[in-house]
């Protein structure tokens, strides 16, 4: 179990993380959500042992990350936001180098198994610098996985990938997460983790603003933004405003309207009201931004 207790990190005058506490039970897959600058990377680096905390502590099964760095680091695999690659090396040499640093006994065996596992076999003899972003990200995963750690910490593993690579990496990580590992995965895109995380922890401005099972968060927390476009917008604005749960209606150009709702799903009522006006388009996907808006407003109030 990973236990983060009253963790704070200040960079000079800026506070990146403030009194953050949460726990991740063994084997759970947790999503770390938050906009840019929320403190996700900072928290993950502290857990992985590359950054010191200003206050508070982090323990893995009771062992303090900073008091027993060797023991704890052997059990953690960390994929930073930018994969930590030596691009002048060949893939196989790099994975072996990582295996050696991580204290693996059978270096060649572990390296080959990892190369196969993450799908690097076709490029194992190539220099990392010449690889595509997707393969580089796999090298980053290989480095985090080569010592078969119980805990995986993945910092925005999908950022900077094209949609096809994104799907590939997501499938790979999903498999890894199912192997009875404790996983913490950060992202600022909700869709990235809906499919694989059991629970989410939401950060904003270095503080936790909410946590819980992902399905509940989208149901209970936060309103949503609904965008629609109709043929005859005249009169619809008033009709929409009258629906209970609608907070704000904003008309746009050429018959488009966007409205913001209270927590709870009222898409059906809105759609029904709009149909007589010649409904052309309708989108009511709840975005992470909406949840943030709600949570941060709640935190301020």
């Amino acid at each position: 179990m990973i236990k983060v207790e009253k963790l704070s990190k200040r960079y000079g005058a800026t506070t990146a993380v403030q009194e953050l506490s949460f726990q991740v039970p063994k084997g759970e897959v947790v999503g770390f959500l938050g906009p840019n600058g929320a403190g996700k990377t900072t928290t993950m680096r502290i857990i992985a042992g590359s950054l010191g905390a200003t206050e508070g502590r982090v323990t893995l099964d009771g062992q303090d990350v900073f008091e027993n760095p060797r023991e704890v680091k052997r059990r953690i695999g960390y994929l930073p936001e930018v994969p930590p690659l030596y691009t002048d090396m060949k893939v196989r040499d790099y994975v072996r180098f990582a295996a050696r640093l991580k204290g693996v006994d059978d270096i060649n065996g572990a390296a080959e198994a990892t190369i196969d596992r993450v799908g690097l076999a076709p490029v194992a003899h190539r220099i990392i610098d010449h690889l595509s972003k997707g393969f580089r990200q796999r090298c980053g995963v290989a480095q985090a996985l080569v010592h078969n750690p119980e805990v995986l910490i993945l910092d925005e593993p999908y950022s900077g990938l094209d949609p096809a690579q994104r799907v590939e990496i997501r499938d790979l990580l999903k498999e890894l997460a199912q192997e009875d590992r404790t996983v913490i995965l950060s992202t600022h895109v909700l869709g990235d983790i809906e499919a694989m995380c059991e629970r989410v922890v939401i950060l904003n401005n270095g503080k936790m603003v909410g946590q819980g099972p992902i399905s509940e968060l989208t149901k209970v927390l936060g309103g949503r933004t609904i965008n629609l476009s109709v043929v005859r917008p005249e009169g619809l604005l008033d009709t929409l405003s009258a629906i209970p749960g609608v907070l704000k209606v904003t008309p746009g150009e050429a018959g488009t309207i966007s409205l913001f709702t209270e927590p709870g799903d009222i898409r059906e009522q809105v759609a029904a009201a709009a149909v007589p006006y010649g409904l052309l388009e309708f989108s009511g996907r709840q975005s992470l931004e909406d949840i943030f808006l709600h949570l941060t407003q709640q935190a301020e109030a």
Partner: protein
Amino acid sequence: MGNILAIAKRELRNYFATPVGWLSLCGYILLTGFFFTIFLGFYSEQAATMGFDPYGPAEMNVDEYLVSPFFGNANIILLFLCPALTMRLFSEDRKAKSLELLLTSPISTAEIVLGKYLGALSFVLVLFLGTLHYPTLLFWMGDPDPGIMASCYLSWTMMTACFMAVGLMASSFTENQMVAMILAFGILLMFWLLGWAEGSLGSTGFQGSLKDVLSFVSLVNRTEDMQKGLIHTKDLVYFGSFVAFFLFVTHQRVEAYRWR
């Protein structure tokens, strides 16, 4: 120890994976060749002149008139070369974020620092291998003292060990390789110039005391005796402490990354 060697090996291989390594190797062989040719020219010219002097020594000593001046003057190549070889050690690693791999591995900061240092130092030892044809030539043509020759190589090694420690430290202070190189070069130049200043001072009174201080801090002057075949324990201790000091500062600096 295994971790240190793994990091050292990676650093050493990096020099051969990039143009920097090969350029340094070629440049170093060319420049030492240039120095060697010049001093060989002086030597044979003087030896020829002396042949006509009935009061001169029967033979000009090759160690004193060729080996020592060659090794002593070729020191200056290292002054320029070492900062270029050390600049990327930490700077590039930080900038490319690859240092995260080292920092999150179950290894100590001391192992990281020593590994990088030994890897870079061993590259220069490879460069030295590229100069072995000069002694070979001399042994083939004449009769130089093997002890002095070995002592000269030791002097280069000591000097390089110091220069590389300064360079490694400079590299730990910035993500910018150019800045790291200039910083290292600046520090080394200062030590170099102190050596010159010492040579120009008198040996009595205030000048004398200043000279003592300068001779203590001057690196280059310490290699002079060694290049004549005289190895003093106090000089070895001095070089050892010099390296240890700069590696210690580097260690503290890398530890500080974690606490920024």
